[in-house]
């Protein structure tokens, strides 16, 4: 699948530094985004370490079959998806151990959401409240479940979605990378179609811009980069209360379409 990529991260209008981070490896088709937390600039340390670890571990996994798998290996998902989850388990250990050995960094952590594309299969893994969305045929679905206190309360039935949106506790997480010795990683897989949009974003975007605004921006922009820029501008226009980061993937065409196959056939039949 050919993927068109757009990405942007921004400080926002209120914060003094940007603790969000993203990394893209376009040859591997691996995309990682992280939102750091912790006093001073420790959030930056956590999010940077988390995305670097994920990228390095996934690359190693591609180069060598004997790279170990961290955390549990699930039988109901592909090898790629297991490798992505393993990378997040490793990132968790690294951030946790770094925080443990530096008293000022104690309590630092990060969210993480990672997407890895292999032909038509999208592998997704995440911890925290940074999200992945799929926009297909004009309809947008959130692929990840937020690991936040308010979202858990909604899922269990204590709060309604409206009460959750109005809550003052929206930034309380139930899971994060680096705050505990072990973490539970959520995974998902999707089959991709030409025309699909995948959006990875930190809550700095979704707190400021509604889902319908996001969908219409994606559908009315000429390129993925243009939509990334427009979304960040929208977040800032609406207040820019937190750092905001977006990574947008647009599925453009398959590597061999029917016309390609016809051309190849023609070539071989002389």
């Amino acid at each position, binding site marked *: 699948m050919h993927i068109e990529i757009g990405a942007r991260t921004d400080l926002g209008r209120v914060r003094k530094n940007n603790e969000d981070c993203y990394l893209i490896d376009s040859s591997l088709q691996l995309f990682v985004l992280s939102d750091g937390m912790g006093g001073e600039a420790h959030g930056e340390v956590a999010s940077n370490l988390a995305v670097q670890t994920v990228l390095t571990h996934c690359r190693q996994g591609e180069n060598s079959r004997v790279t170990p798998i961290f955390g549990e290996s*699930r039988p109901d*998902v592909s090898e790629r998806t297991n490798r992505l989850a393993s990378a997040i388990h490793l990132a968790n250990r690294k951030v946790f151990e770094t925080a443990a050995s530096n008293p000022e960094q104690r309590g630092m952590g990060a969210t993480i959401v990672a997407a890895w594309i292999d032909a038509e299969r999208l592998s997704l893994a995440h911890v925290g409240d940074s999200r992945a969305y799929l926009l297909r045929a004009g309809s947008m679905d959130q692929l990840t479940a937020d690991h936040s206190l308010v979202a858990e309360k909604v899922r269990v039935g204590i709060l309604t979605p409206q009460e959750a949106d109005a809550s003052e*506790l929206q930034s*309380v*997480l139930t899971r994060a990378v680096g705050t505990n010795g072990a973490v539970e990683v959520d995974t998902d*897989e999707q*089959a*991709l179609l030409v025309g699909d949009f995948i959006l990875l974003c930190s809550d700095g975007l979704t707190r400021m811009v509604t889902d319908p605004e996001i969908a219409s921006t994606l559908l009315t922009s000429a390129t993925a980069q243009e939509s990334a820029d427009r979304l960040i501008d929208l977040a800032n226009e609406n207040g820019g209360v937190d750092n905001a980061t977006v990574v947008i993937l647009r599925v453009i065409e398959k590597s061999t379409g029917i016309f390609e196959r016809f051309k190849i056939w023609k070539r071989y039949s002389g």
Partner: protein
Amino acid sequence: MSRLVLKFETEMLKEVPLGTRPVTIGRAPDNDIQIDNLAVSNYHARVYVEAGSLVVEDLNSLNGSFLNDIRVERAMLKDGDAILIGKHEILVDQLNDAAQPLDALRKAPVPRVNETMVLDTHERRMLLDAAVAAGERSQLSPERFRMPTLIVSRGNTDQKEYRIASKLTVIGKSKMATVRLRGWFTPEVAAQINKHEDGYYLGRGDRLPKINGVTINGLTKLNDGDVIDVGRVRLNFMYRD
């Protein structure tokens, strides 16, 4: 007069009246409330009266002190609040009736939280246990195991029956399809089924599928006995024991 009640699970262990002197809590024996547990620091926290209000203060403990699920360093207390230290709860009783943990979760005035914080797994479990105990609908309780299955009643497929064993089940001509369809104009991915924590969801691919004759609108949860139509293929979704 006010008092602090030490509880472990459902058992009341100790009661300490709150006077003018601060009440100390920790593992060391010279604390007013001694909790003999490795998760508790020697001098873990204290409760005192300041300008007419009750205040809890964490004494830089290793595992922290929690007020109604939120980790605190210092916070004001009101009647019915629960302070969690290790696995022990200390209830604040000012009127002689201790509030239910669920009420504490719902109604306690919470300190303003601007920075991101993380709860640990114990608190998360406590939150969910409280909800289940109070009879709330819990989507995380596992049901007895039933194998989700697709039975083909019409259409050109490679098998008559399919077990859904993966997180992602593709219906189409693609190599990664579980339900392999045949035909010149069949799309690679006609539709797909995703496994979520609370069940199986049908989503569109190149085709817009129907459930029980109704075209779906976004990812839709599948129920036992649903009839799925993807183009000319008809599948029955069923849970088999």
